[in-house]
């Protein structure tokens, strides 16, 4: 296999995706966008697991990916439910306006 992409490329891509997710989580103000940033972080984790699993010729890493996907799905289900209940009581999706609990 002469022309395969080296593993470091996948890892760099994963790191960049993860950094995008973290940045989005910190600077975005819309709850849904923040939530999508978290999903991006989890997908970066998945990519890095798959790349490592390929490198080690193992299934462990790929199994972990399935579990991360399950977790992400469960989190999305619970998260969207919570977001809807917040929206129902406040009619807003901006985190800056969800500020009853403060110092």
């Amino acid at each position, binding site marked *: 296999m002469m022309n395969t992409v080296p593993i470091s490329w996948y*890892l760099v891509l*994963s790191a960049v995706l*993860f950094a995008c*997710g*973290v940045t989005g*989580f910190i600077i975005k103000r819309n*709850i849904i966008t*923040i*939530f999508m940033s*978290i999903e991006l*972080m*989890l997908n*970066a*984790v998945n990519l*890095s*697991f798959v*790349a*490592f699993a390929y*490198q*080690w010729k*193992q299934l*462990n*890493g790929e*199994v*972990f990916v399935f*579990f*991360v996907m399950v*977790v992400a799905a*469960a*989190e999305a289900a*619970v*998260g969207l*439910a*919570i*977001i809807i*209940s*917040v929206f129902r*009581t*406040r009619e807003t999706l901006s*985190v800056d306006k*969800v*500020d*009853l*609990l403060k*110092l």
Partner: protein
Amino acid sequence: MQTFAAQFANAHDLMVVMPMVMLTLFACGVLIIDLLLPAGDKRWNAATAALGLLFAGGSLWRVQATLAHQGMLGVSAFNGSVVMDPMAIFFCWLFLIATGITILISVRYMEIEQEDHGEYYALMLFSVVGMMCMASGKDIVLLFIGLELMAISTYVLVGFLRRDKRSNEAALKYLLLGAFSSGIFAYGLSLMYGLSGTTDVTLIGRRLAGLPESSHPILMLAVVTTLAGLFFKIAAVPFHQWAPDAYEGAPTAITGFMSVAGKAAAWALLLRIFAFALRYEQTIWMPMVIAVAVMTLTGGNLAAMTQNNLKRLLAYSSIAHVGYMLLGLVAWNETGIKGILVYLLVYTFMNLGAFAVIVSLRRRDLIGDEIDDIAGLWFKRPVEALLMVIFLLSLGGIPPLAGFYGKYFIFLSLIETGHYVLASLAVFYIAVSLYYYLRIINAMLMRPALDAEPIQPAFGLRLALWVTALATVGIGLFPEIFIRAAAWTMTAPRAVTQAFLR
């Protein structure tokens, strides 16, 4: 020839995970029974959940008996991904006790809040299953799943008062920061897997130690991200922002549950990762742990001084307690680990007791979580006020009470390892913490009540109060008896230390 099914679910494996299986079955049972019960008569849900805890305790006892009988350091199952060693069993008992007390507190409280649904108890049991996986997992896949099972169940429990704006908001903040920290933690795990090529924590530890110099930057990144995720979960400064918000907005019983059981589970996970996967990486994590411990002590104690909301004050005080436990991690010897475990045990009783008193303040149109609401408790319910004084003094670490022994072992370990500066800093912060605990006591005993509404704690709540108070005073007065009764459990710290000293 073994069949495929027999290979993966034989009787021994099932016996080891039976506590989790029992809790899962009973949680599903609660969901079904809830459908059959008429509205307004939901107490059977709580009874079913409590029965589930009893059955889980019974199966846990069986695991423990097997272990003692065979004189082993742990029984593993499912190809070594689950291990029930003394530390795991210690934590499992702690989760069961904390959940039992929380159920006692919750029954009447959730009826007053008019949210007494079966899902409440089912989610609580599911989150205990997650905690048990965190305590007994020896494979990063299981540890991660356990963490998420606990976290996702708790997100829902925090937002359980869905008509209450503050509960919604707390759930949202907890969810966003919790999921964010899980992402960071998982990224650290993926790097550790990449460096070691295995998901078993013991093997990870061994292979990380043998890495060539060239991969140290990635190792550094792996350790830092994993630690950041773990610090989020135990709510250490500067990763603590979610805790005060989530604690304040959550139903009070759940605040107590999160602050003891959830915190103990996060500590179980942290100890597991530190004692196995990162046991040779001390030079990397020790400076971080010292810095975070000092920041946590400072941040938690100073922020607690200015709070007027009881739940928020106890949230910051629980952050400060994490600071003390982190000092045990800094010492990183047998006494230090024992100190952390004893601390978590006594903290369970005294903190749940304090939250039980706050739950009893819930009266018409009052959440009862402001300092003004507890004012004059002595004149209304002297017994509850006295118990609250015991809990608060124990939280402050006053000698004849249980809280003292948690701090005692931590300080001892610091002295043993020559961390005199950290020890004196910790003693200084005890004085600071007494200020805010005495502020509550002052309000209870000296100030007149602001309203004439009577306070009538329900039977379950009174039972929970007495159990926690007896444990707080009992452990404080007769620590030797407790240690002897738990002699077998106390091999827990030894098992951990043996794991990393070998």
